[in-house]
């Protein structure tokens, strides 16, 4: 199978010996949506920056439609679009100007650039606000503008680095629809996210990345089916109590795991199992039942949850959240 993007043993070590990406390899097939799912600091942005020629890999290489990101960066730049994690549009200018400048940077004549600007804005539902200053846009509009800016040159491959970060549910759904449409247009998409719903509902395939390494890869169904059954989460007051109960339940033959003060029991049918467990639940604060999802796959693999929110570059983050709140 031909890869649209093929990463081969990518490594990035930042100054100070921070190994942000540790020997990552994957193949994104033409026309699919491929997601990198991982928590803060997993190395998603670093990977995307290397694939978009912004950062030089410490070692390894990647090919984008056959072109090496190290040796032929200019060829790669022509065929990729990138929606960066942070908002980069200029809020002192209009949406139109932001996209138009982008089009000019790809070398189009004035009339061609104007035509492409209009198309990109229209596709992102922004044409009617195009002449307004970006500072008057909502968070969702700004995110869509970022995508419009990345589409003017009709890239064959689009990288989106946490495109829905900080958006409310409604704007997020709107964006998901647009991303699905982009896929229908035949664009190959690399998406990074730490929202498992996003990875699950949009992607054809997902790579779970943690501490710079890919720890699992497959379709969402493949990844979750490995876990099997349903899961009962028993939340206790302390890790100690959780351990005690876990011992008792495993003696009874249950499949039990402990994460901090949470106990996870994997069963084939949760509703039928709970009455069986009832005598042991007196110290339990809360019971939750989940079907296996990517969040749990991550938990299973790393013993940690996906979402331990923490800002990235504090300045960018502040600017970003301030803009998003407006």
């Amino acid at each position, binding site marked *: 199978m031909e890869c649209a993007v093929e990463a081969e043993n990518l490594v990035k070590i930042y100054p100070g010996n921070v190994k942000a990406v540790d020997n990552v390899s994957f193949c994104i097939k033409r026309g699919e949506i491929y997601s990198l799912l991982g928590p803060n600091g997993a190395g998603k942005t670093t990977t995307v920056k290397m694939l978009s020629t912004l950062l*030089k890999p410490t070692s390894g290489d990647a090919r984008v439609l056959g072109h090496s990101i190290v040796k032929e960066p200019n060829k790669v730049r022509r065929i990729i679009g990138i929606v960066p994690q942070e908002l980069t549009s200029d809020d002192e200018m209009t949406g139109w100007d932001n996209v138009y400048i982008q089009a*000019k940077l790809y070398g189009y004549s004035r009339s061609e650039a104007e035509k492409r600007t209009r198309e990109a804005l229209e596709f992102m539902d922004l044409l009617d606000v195009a002449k307004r200053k970006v500072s008057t846009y909502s968070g969702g509009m700004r995110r869509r503008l970022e995508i419009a800016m990345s589409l003017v040159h009709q890239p064959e491959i689009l990288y989106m680095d946490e495109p829905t970060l900080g958006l409310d549910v409604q704007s997020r759904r709107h964006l998901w629809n647009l991303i699905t449409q982009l896929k229908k247009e035949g664009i190959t998409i690399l998406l990074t996210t730490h929202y498992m719903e996003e990875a699950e509902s949009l992607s054809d395939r997902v790579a779970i990345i943690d501490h710079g390494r890919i720890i699992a890869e497959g379709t969402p169904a493949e990844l979750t089916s490995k876990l099997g059954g349903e899961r009962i989460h028993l939340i206790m007051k302390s890790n100690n109590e959780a351990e005690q109960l876990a011992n008792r339940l495993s003696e009874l033959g249950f499949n039990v795991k402990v994460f901090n003060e949470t106990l996870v029991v994997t069963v084939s049918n949760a509703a039928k199992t709970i009455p069986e467990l009832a005598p042991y639940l007196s110290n339990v604060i809360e019971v939750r039942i989940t079907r296996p999802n990517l969040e749990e796959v991550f938990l299973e693999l790393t013993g940690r949850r996906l979402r331990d929110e923490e800002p990235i570059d504090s300045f960018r983050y502040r600017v970003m959240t301030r803009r998003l709140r407006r």
Partner: protein
Amino acid sequence: MAGVVSSTLIIAWRDIKKWIGRRAVFVVSIITPLIWIAFFGKSMNIQGIFTSRVPENLPPQLQNLMQELFNQALLNAFGTTDYFTFFAAGMLAVFSLFQSMFSGVSVIFDKRLGYMDRLLVTPTPRTAIFLGKVGATLFRLSLLEILLFAAAVALGMNLKPDLSASDLLAAWIVIMLLSLGLSSAYTTLSFYAENQEVIFAVGNLVNLPLMFTSSALFPVQQMPSWLQAIAKVNPVTYAADLVRYHLVGKPINDYLFHISILAVVSLGLFIVGLALSVRWMNNR
């Protein structure tokens, strides 16, 4: 090649459009040269110091003689009996020194807000990014220098009687050369610097000394010899002398030497700056 030109233009256009769009900043930057010329130039009333010293109870011939002597002293020092004219010409050069500093600030903001990454993922030639930033500064400066010059003339700057269009053009080229060097230096610094404070700190460190150790405010011959040595390597001196030569008519010994020094220093800064900036863009 065509790519470099059109990319440079669009990158410069963006900066200029933003500059004009920021109404308050735009107005302030237009008022600044006017304030400078009016307040600085008129407060340093050096002729006044001399004229007020001629005692009035002396016989008229003696009064005239003393005035004559003072004028001679002024003429020796400034090449004109009118300090404001001397100063205004120097100010045209100094203003370029201070404006050039700002070309760095936009690079730093573009970097911090992630716009620089946006630029760098396009196939835009890296040289065009540098040229666009420096070009925008030169454009802004040209507009402001015209205003500054007009204000100086309105406030009584005495231009040389045979001033020609080519003199004006030459003075403009001199100022652009100076700014080309300085804004290249500041732009390069901004690629490597982490935040805008670095630019202002360096500006504070460098700009005032460059101004005072040049012939912009005061003639070099009046300085102690060690200071003269510094003035001789300061490009602002050459720019100020050249502007003065073209606009006011104060003679200079060796025109070719002056223009060559200025050109070598400025083009040197430009070429080194361009190379270092492109290096930064390609090596991350």
